[in-house]
């Protein structure tokens, strides 16, 4: 256990240093996010107040989802330089520690993108006096992030060796995450439009979101070891 934690800490620290070494790495998804929201505002034009919550949910989740892809797809990029990835595969490193370090950095980046996106969406899209920002929306966003992050790490690792990753990533990642996105959107809709509390949603959309989080995390943790095994 101690060895596992040491490996996890070392790998996480290395990943953090890489992400922090260049502000472009964590700033570009944020700028992309802000641009997307502005585009949403322009493309929808004047919206009737009763449709604003719906627009807020759709625009926020789509923006966060697309911005996260930039971060996810780049998480393993530094490992590909100087054959670090191939060297790491030959070391006696626990695949679980490796996966968890990548997963943690993805979740950190995700939170860094999600929070400003929620705030900016509320700022730009909400014309009413009542704020759309709430703890419930944040919890739903974080739960979605747990599923998206696990799949993001697994598929990014898979695509490293593929020479068609530009087409494969959207072709595989987007369909697999559709149920997660749909559960997050429906849960948020129930909270914002139908004024439901989270505990009421556990037997429906929120429950599905939690199940997907657990399922994708477990599956990706187990399968990651197979992807990084040396040939």
């Amino acid at each position: 256990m101690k060895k596992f934690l040491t490996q996890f800490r070392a790998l996480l620290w290395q990943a953090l240093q890489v992400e922090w070494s260049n502000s472009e790495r964590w700033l570009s998804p944020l700028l992309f996010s802000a641009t997307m929201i502005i585009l949403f505002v322009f493309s929808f034009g004047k919206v009737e107040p009763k449709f604003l919550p719906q627009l807020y949910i759709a625009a926020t989740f789509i923006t966060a989802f697309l911005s996260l892809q930039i971060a996810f797809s780049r998480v393993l990029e530094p490992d590909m330089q100087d054959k670090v990835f191939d060297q790491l595969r030959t070391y006696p490193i626990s695949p679980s520690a490796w996966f968890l370090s990548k997963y943690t950095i993805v979740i950190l980046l995700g939170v860094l993108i999600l929070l400003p996106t929620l705030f900016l969406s509320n700022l730009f899209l909400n014309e009413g006096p009542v704020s759309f920002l709430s703890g419930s929306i944040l919890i739903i966003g974080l739960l979605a992030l747990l599923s998206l992050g696990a799949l993001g790490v697994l598929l990014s690792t898979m695509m490293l060796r593929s020479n068609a990753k530009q087409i494969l990533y959207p072709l595989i990642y987007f369909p697999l995450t559709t149920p997660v996105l749909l559960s997050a959107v429906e849960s948020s809709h129930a909270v914002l439009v139908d004024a439901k509390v989270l505990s009421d949603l556990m037997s429906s959309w929120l429950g599905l979101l939690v199940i997907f989080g657990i399922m994708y995390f477990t599956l990706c943790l187990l399968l990651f070891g197979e992807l990084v095994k040396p040939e």
Partner: protein
Amino acid sequence: MIDARKQDRLTMTLGFVAFLFAAACWFYALKLAPSDEAQGEVYRIMFFHVPSAFMAFLASGALLFTSGWTLFKRSPTAALWSKACAEVGLMFTAITLITGSIWGRPTWGVWWTWDARLTTTLILALLYAGYLIFTSSMAPGPQRDRMAAALGLVIAIDVPIIYKSVTWWRTLHQPPSLMRAGGSTMDPEMKNILYVCFFAMLFVAIWLIWTRAVNLKLQAAIEEHSHQAHSH
């Protein structure tokens, strides 16, 4: 050589029997099955559409099994079987979408709608296509087999979602008619014909997967032989 010829003849005979059986079933379904009270004659496409949809799902079940086999047994042959399952699965998913669209036009008034089951079936088609592009975009070897197997396992998870989508989401698509709480709502004669069509399609699907897997094995052997010849 004689063995190969014998095997070819057996494969062709089995294929002929499978397709003849399927054709006879569809002829019976189209000409002799009773009309539906609500939908009239148009419902008959169901005898092609529903078995195709089941085969698309079953192919993903087979993909799950062969992917697991590849991962746990490190079998390159299982990886070829996985590819064959994905190809046949994609074919049946495409047939399901096309026949569903043809059925949807007179009953719903549209060729396509973003209904839950239609969307999730389209997602399944995209995933099969993604799986096949992924396998062809990597160099052959144990690593490709392992990665494709991992992807196969993840894709197979999508199938229960597709099946449950009709009950989870508000949908235009009719709820399951065969496997539902309280028993089937279908006319017994229609149900029996559907079961026979289902069996015929299963026979066709197994034959297609088997033939494709044999072809892929041959292709792999030829590539291996050619690689060895070049290295010498």
